[in-house]
């Protein structure tokens, strides 16, 4: 693919992620903070999000498998997950976390387990989308192009 084609693909793909609710305006904030002095900012923050999320999902899975579920712990983990997902603009994950906390408050085990499945699914989905987006960005830069940020707003 030539650079212009890749750039058009990037614009189309990014727009679809916003349109389908995987990402919200906060992700655009991250993109705004990336510049020549920090060309990998988005990729860095996104990979921190992946590490954080996978640790939290493992912890949540463990806590919810126990005989006596410590709902305070569940809530603390979900609170963290909600914070990190909203900081990077992973909108679906964030919304799952809001529902998750409500079930946690009610100490509804069934509801919590359902939410855990939902948040896992949405997390891995947005992870693959973000990975694809960043791969595309790296290809554009490797081919000597720049990320056409300004095209997103038009």
């Amino acid at each position, binding site marked *: 693919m030539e650079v212009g084609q890749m750039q058009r693909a990037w614009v189309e793909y990014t727009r679809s992620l916003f349109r389908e609710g995987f990402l919200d305006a906060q992700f655009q904030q991250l993109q705004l*903070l990336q*510049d020549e002095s920090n060309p990998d*900012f988005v990729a860095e*923050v996104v990979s*921190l999000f992946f590490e*954080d999320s996978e640790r939290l999902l493992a912890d949540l899975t463990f806590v919810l498998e126990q005989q006596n579920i410590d709902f305070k712990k569940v809530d603390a983990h979900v609170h963290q997950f*909600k*914070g*990190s997902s909203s*900081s990077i603009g992973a909108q679906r994950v964030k919304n799952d976390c809001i529902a998750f906390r409500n079930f946690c408050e009610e100490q509804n085990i069934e509801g919590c387990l359902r939410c855990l499945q939902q948040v896992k699914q949405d997390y891995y989905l947005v992870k693959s989308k973000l990975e694809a987006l960043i791969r595309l960005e790296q290809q554009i830069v490797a081919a000597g192009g720049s990320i056409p940020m300004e095209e997103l707003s038009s």
Partner: protein
Amino acid sequence: MFYDHVGVMHGHRKQILKGNKAENWPLFAHRPHQSPSAQDMLDAMEITGDSRSQFHVLAVDDSLIDRKLIERLLKTSSYQVTTVDSGSKALKFLGFQEDEQSNPDTPFGSPNNHQEVEVNLIITDYCMPGMTGYDLLKKVKESSSLRNIPVVIMSSENVPSRITRCLEEGAEEFFLKPVRLSDLNRLKPHMMKTKIKNQKQEEDQEDLKISEIQSDEQQQQPVQPPSPQPQPESQPQPPPPPPALLLQHNNNKRKAMEEGLSPDRTRPRYNGIPTMV
């Protein structure tokens, strides 16, 4: 040097140096026993011509993602940034000592009890394990050497009672997370205000010296001078009546000054009483 000090901060030295800003830090970054005058600060600002790069913000958040984000936001806005992951590390960075209040005999200006790096604003997360952002705010506002530093609280939850509590305790702003670039426009006025206030304190220092001397005299002469008015309150009193603490600290100019001259920092507290925003 402040490098040694920062080196204690478990790797935050690296973060500071990574920004390649070390050489651009304020001219008064190393301040052994004396704070710079407001005039020094203004001079420094004029020399560089970029006032914002002279502002140093201490950002406190237990989440690494959020530290990255706030660091980037602040640097994009041309501030110098130091990030730490807990309230206790923030206090350590500020040179805060627990016994500052409880032990009035501690001579002010001892190296341990001093902020070696100028911090113009603290921005802290509210919800952190151990010391919360609210606890940090209280410690800063209760400390005579730190209370003039503006504090901004960030929280992902929009809880009106929490916001009220923080503002009553002396926070300048409450930001909902995630913090956006546009929120940061609200920081600068607070830093400017503090600089102006510091300058005013320098100017008032001379007046205060006089009042300290007079209060000494008052203490030595417990008998009121004869007066035609029966009520001493109605008498014109040239120096402001010094609080009890001030009398113990007559050898301690800066501390006395901050105890006596910051009435606007002491906001009314309504602890325990539910209030609405």
